[in-house]
């Protein structure tokens, strides 16, 4: 067989290239899945022409189209902040992919503080949204940015508490350790506890992505596209579309890793080991993405005050109680 020895830096370069290919490819596939899944849930066909077979190249064509669009910066806008904001939104999302284990060996860096890093980096995008909203000098954008900031901080806490529950069950913050301890996925095994944490995470994730039903910040019927109203061309893609899809794939991967057993088989049967970890991971990630897409045509938009009430008066108390219940479970059961 092959016997290749690579220097550590070569391995690092390969891993970074692989992971950074996953980001745009994942976003393209996610975008296509969004078109198609939503269409079929609504008894439509969705895009059928680009690329020939069931419109597979739709999102690719969209991306190229946006590359050729004029980049308009409004005269009233704060030019520097306005043009930097898309990067401030996109880069943190790319950074989350650093610690997501696609397979036992396919992770750029297995940080000791993996989950903590994810949560820390994940909250950076809020700054980008505020930058975009404020620098646009547009009333819709300003309202949208303030709404997103309020929403992102409110729904960050359920995710944090769900992550604490996972850390308690696994006894580690490293994502590789978390996957390895899941003989049964956390969403199934500590009965109830893991599943409630999984629900908290999913609801929080949908809100963090500002997707329906929590899409008040970009509610098109009242504030156009919120913070992204003035953006056009490639900057719009980075600020909104690519960011949302990248976020969705990242949250799918995080959910699969924390609650569904990541690259491990879904049930601990030795027979299933022949399927490579990459396939398990992708299947679970796609399942998570399907959940996010399924929610979109199912629920109506939630009003801003209901949204805040739901987070602060329901999700966060439930999360706090869940942390204590998990503590009792780990110690006494």
């Amino acid at each position, binding site marked *: 067989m092959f016997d290749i020895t690579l220097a550590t830096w070569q391995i690092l370069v390969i891993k970074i290239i692989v992971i950074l290919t996953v980001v745009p490819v994942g976003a393209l596939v996610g975008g296509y899945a969004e078109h198609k899944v939503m269409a079929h849930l609504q008894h439509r066909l969705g895009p059928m022409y680009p690329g020939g077979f069931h419109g597979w190249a739709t999102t690719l064509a969209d991306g190229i189209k946006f590359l050729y669009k004029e980049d308009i910066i409004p005269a009233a806008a704060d030019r520097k902040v306005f043009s930097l904001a898309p990067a401030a939104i996109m880069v943190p999302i790319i950074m989350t992919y*650093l610690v997501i284990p696609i397979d036992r060996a396919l992770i750029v860096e297995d940080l000791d503080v993996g989950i903590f890093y994810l949560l820390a980096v994940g909250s950076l995008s809020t700054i980008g949204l505020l930058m975009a909203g404020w620098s646009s000098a547009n009333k819709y954008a300003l309202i949208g940015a303030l709404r997103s900031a309020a929403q992102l901080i409110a729904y960050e806490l359920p995710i944090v508490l769900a992550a604490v529950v996972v850390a308690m069950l696994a*006894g580690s913050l490293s994502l590789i350790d978390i996957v390895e301890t899941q003989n049964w996925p956390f969403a199934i095994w500590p009965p109830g506890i893991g599943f409630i944490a999984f629900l908290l995470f999913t609801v929080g994730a949908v809100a963090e992505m500002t997707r329906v039903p929590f899409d008040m910040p970009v509610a098109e019927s009242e504030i156009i596209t919120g913070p992204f109203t003035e953006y056009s061309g490639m900057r719009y893609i980075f600020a909104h579309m690519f960011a949302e899809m990248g976020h969705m794939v990242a949250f799918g991967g995080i959910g699969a890793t924390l609650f569904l057993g990541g690259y491990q088989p879904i049930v601990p049967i030795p027979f299933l080991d022949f399927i490579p970890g990459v396939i398990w991971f992708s299947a679970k990630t796609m399942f998570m993405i399907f959940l996010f897409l399924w929610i979109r045509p199912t629920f109506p938009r939630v009003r801003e005050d209901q949204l805040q009430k739901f987070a602060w008066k329901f999700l966060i108390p439930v999360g706090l109680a869940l942390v204590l219940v998990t503590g009792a479970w780990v110690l006494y059961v």
Partner: protein
Amino acid sequence: MPEGYFGQYATIGIFVFVGVALVFGTLQLARLVRPNVPSYEKSTTYESGIDPIGEGWSQSNVRYYIFALLFVVFDVEAVFLFPWAIVFERLGTQALVEMVIFIGILAIALLYAIKKKVLEWL
């Protein structure tokens, strides 16, 4: 990978650098191929087709400063929760009781905020 504690953070640095390069590289690529035909109408502020009234940086009611304060409280709590979550199994019942007290105090604070009706988005 670079080894050791600082090695891990060096990897993060490299990754961030490549991520930033990816974003700005694509924007530069777009600059090469996109048209640039500026006009006055295009660069006005968008207000659904009507001429913009007043400034975009208008006074707005920041309704959620209390939410932001509470968020800081609970986010700092998370900083304490994570180290505890790793070691509490070794420390046993005592650690759990301490965390019950800690979360109890925070829960009372949240309850107080709800009773004071500061968590109403007007």
